[in-house]
């Protein structure tokens, strides 16, 4: 929020990115630009390298070559203190939650605060409870352990933890996968609300067509190691690339599209 010029620094800037696993090329000279405060959705078939791309952006994996800049910081040869500082500026919600099984939900959400701020413990608990409430969880959930929660509650709790430090950039890996339609809709609304409220940039990996149509500002389609199309859903609908067509043709694609119109 206190970026000097948030309008001009892109949230993510990737150029000439190449990733290989042995002989298998995952990304070949991939370029991508994500604007600040936009909801950007990354889609692509299984094995297209979406998750690998996310892992490279959040410093869990190193690309073979190419440059990645996140919030204006170049990830190549980043020093440990700079990486630590950068990690506090984003929040990540993992597909299966990634909540620590030995901590209660409240402790899970409060962990980033406890680790990176000098706040008093009672205050951290209050803030954690508030973040839980913001993601639509009952206060009683805070005292439970992750193994006692349903899939949807895990996702919310994980989102609350990702929000603990008021990040500037939020990464969501399959936020609606495995949720019932109602919960998925609530997550949609929640994501939108968060962006409007905190002016967050949000990057979503998803297969959820409804989510794409409802909340994504721009969508990037990843196939054959490159971004095959980037734009709003209605712009992409005009494209003829087979990897892009998959999201519009077929009964599900058409149903989601007609749900918007």
């Amino acid at each position, binding site marked *: *929020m*206190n*970026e*000097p010029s948030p309008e001009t620094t892109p949230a993510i800037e990737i150029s000439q990115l190449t990733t290989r696993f042995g002989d298998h090329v995952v990304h070949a000279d991939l370029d991508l630009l994500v604007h600040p405060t936009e909801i950007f959705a990354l889609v692509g078939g299984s094995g297209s390298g979406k998750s690998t791309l996310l892992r490279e952006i959040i410093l869990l994996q190193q690309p073979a070559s190419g440059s990645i800049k996140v919030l*204006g910081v170049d990830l190549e040869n980043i020093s440990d203190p700079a990486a630590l*500082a950068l990690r506090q*500026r984003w929040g990540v919600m993992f597909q299966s939650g990634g909540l620590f*099984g*030995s901590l209660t939900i409240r402790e899970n959400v409060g962990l980033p*605060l406890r680790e*990176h*701020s*000098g*706040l*008093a413990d009672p*205050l951290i608990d*209050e*803030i954690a*409870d*508030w*973040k839980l*409430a*913001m993601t639509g969880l*009952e*206060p*009683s959930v*805070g*005292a439970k*352990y*992750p*193994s006692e929660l349903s899939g949807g509650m895990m996702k919310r709790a994980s989102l609350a933890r990702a*929000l603990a*430090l*008021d990040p*500037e950039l939020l990464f969501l890996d399959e936020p609606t996968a495995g949720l019932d339609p109602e919960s998925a809709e609530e997550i949609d609304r929640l994501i939108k609300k968060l962006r409007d*409220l*905190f*002016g967050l940039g949000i990057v979503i990996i998803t297969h959820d067509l409804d989510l794409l149509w409802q909340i994504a500002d721009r969508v990037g389609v990843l196939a054959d190691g490159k971004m095959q199309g980037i734009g709003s859903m209605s712009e992409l609908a005009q494209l003829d690339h087979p990897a892009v067509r998959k999201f519009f043709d077929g009964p599900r694609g058409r149903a989601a599209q007609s749900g918007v119109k």
Partner: protein
Amino acid sequence: MTQTPATAARFTRTKPLELALSGSWTVRGIGRIDSELETLAVPSGVAVVIDASRIDAFDSAGAWIVHKLLHRLHGASGQAEIRDLRPEFVRLLDVVGQEIAQQASTSPPDAVKPLNKLESLGRGTADALEQGVALLAFVGESSLALSGWIAHPARIRWRPILYNIRSAGFDALPIVGLLSFLLGVVVAYQGADQLRQYGANIFVADLVGLSMLREFAPLITAIIVAGRSGSAYAAQIGSMAVSEEIDAMRTIGIAPLEMLVLPKVIALFIALPLLTVFADVLGVFGGMIMARAQLAVSYPEFLDRFAKTVSVTAYLIGISKAPVFAAIIVTVGCFQGFRTHGGADSVGLQTTRSVVQSIFLVIVADALFSVAFSALDL
């Protein structure tokens, strides 16, 4: 950038009824200002004004604290007002207000009270009893499944049995051999001094032979296997339980006991006695080497004495314990594995339990054997 060290959040009392807030009211800037604000005393019944014009960074933690402050002042003085907060910050403060209103309408979570001594003792006892009953049930179910296999040998799954014989038996040969060899060396070495005093050097064969064959070889083998394979059983079954593989097995119509437990039982019934024989041989061999080095008892002398004094009964007594130890190790390991629920933590916990409990039970069983054998004059 947010990373430039945030200026600390501050408040000053410009006038008796006016507070000026400044600096970064963010996670990094707030520090312990919360407790300082708590101590702020305001006369009741008068309006307080908060000047927020010099707040230059504001996040949800800051909004939370400012909201709490407003709320408290409102309660104390009847009126509190915040002025000149930047518009983008005002929105954040409003949201906090809404959420708090919602939170207040739902009941606060019950604080978890620490258990008092009596209660935790009671709970511990109940847990132990429950676990004992569950163990008994598990032994019963496994026995039933085993008798099913014996009645219908066609159902026996040979591949996992052979696999388990290799992993729990054959692969353990080096470590079992090395440790029992060393144990034989130690026993002979410790006995050497005493025996030499009485010129009873040749009795080292009695000492090493009887102690290794009757006690040490079966025990050390069982303890190694409990640590090596018992823990693996618990971890394997535990992680399968966590990832719903065991449920999947049931729905496909494979009995988990037949697939996971019985092959291990049969494999260890075969492997542990054989490992014990191997440990016998290497243990005595270690003692023999030490006898020559320390007591000048040559190999032929040692073996001659060994054949005379160490009876076949001593050997069989040692071997006969092995199947019992095998049953303990497999039962405890698999049982603790099946009791895993929840996440990775639980797998670790149950694995630890399985090793501790199986070693404990192996030693208890060994003690009971000693009592029984001495009562039977064996």
